[in-house]
């Protein structure tokens, strides 16, 4: 159908004429300007003002964060240099620390030390029994749940030993002092001293004098799982 501009022009003219009286009202003009102002401010606020202010605030925050990070990095570098100096100072002594708190249970070296200490102190080692101990130092669950292990680091593990020796009071005292001064970290958790009765004279301790005492020790030793 061909476009008849005369008919169409007349139709649109009627629309414009019908809108004219509405815009001639003061209240309508005011409402329209206020409504479009709010909408325009909202539109430009969201699409123009927000990204601009957001970028400004982000950059300011980034500068502040980088300043703090730079300061923390400098402090850490200084701390590392200081730690390196301390490490060089104690480096020759580190094997002693490994002996005190070995990375594995190392039951046999401890037993050898307790046996050597017994012969050094002049007491007779009658029994030495380590409790169940993991060979590779893996953590058994029951050890980690004990109250003692909850107080210390989770990597630090321990196991118990029971030692019985016979000897005079002075020798037993020397043995206990030796355990306390032993480099391997070992604590005495229980101790019983009793005189040896006459009916035990047929035991290997028969050669000992009459004032021979029997010492039963419960020891706890530690190791550090890496």
């Amino acid at each position, binding site marked *: 159908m061909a476009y008849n501009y005369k008919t169409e022009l007349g139709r649109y003219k009627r629309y414009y004429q019908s809108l004219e009286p509405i815009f001639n009202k003061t209240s309508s003009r005011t409402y329209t300007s206020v409504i479009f102002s709010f*909408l325009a401010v909202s539109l430009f606020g969201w699409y123009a003002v927000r990204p601009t202010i957001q970028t400004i605030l982000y950059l300011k925050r980034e500068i502040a964060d980088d300043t703090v990070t730079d300061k923390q990095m400098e402090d850490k570098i200084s701390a590392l240099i200081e730690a390196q100096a301390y490490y060089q100072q*104690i480096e020759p002594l580190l094997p002693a620390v490994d002996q005190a708190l070995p990375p594995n249970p190392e039951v046999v070296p401890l037993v050898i030390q307790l046996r050597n200490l017994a012969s050094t102190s002049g007491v007779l080692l009658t029994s030495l029994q380590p409790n169940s101990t993991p060979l590779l130092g893996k953590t058994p669950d029951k050890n980690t749940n004990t109250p003692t292990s909850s107080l210390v680091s989770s990597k630090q593990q321990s196991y118990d030993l029971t030692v019985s020796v016979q000897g005079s009071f002075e020798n037993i005292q020397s043995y206990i002092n030796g355990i306390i001064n032993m480099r391997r970290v070992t604590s005495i958790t229980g101790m019983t001293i009793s005189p040896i009765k006459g009916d035990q004279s047929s035991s290997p301790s028969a050669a000992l004098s009459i004032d021979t005492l029997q010492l039963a020790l419960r020891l706890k030793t530690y190791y550090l799982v890496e």
Partner: protein
Amino acid sequence: MENDQDLLLISIFTFFTITLWVTFELLKTVKTTTVAQTTQQIVIPLNPKIDVDTVNTINNKQVY
């Protein structure tokens, strides 16, 4: 007239909604750190003090 008032209310509510939205977006930008997680882990403070006295005490103990 009532139609104009409704439109005005809608525009006012739109304005306030967008104002609040922009405000919270800007607050979030200010509060969110720009430092990466790895950097935060790197700059954790380190105590360089090593108890040399304790190490010396351990070294002075005996091995049998």
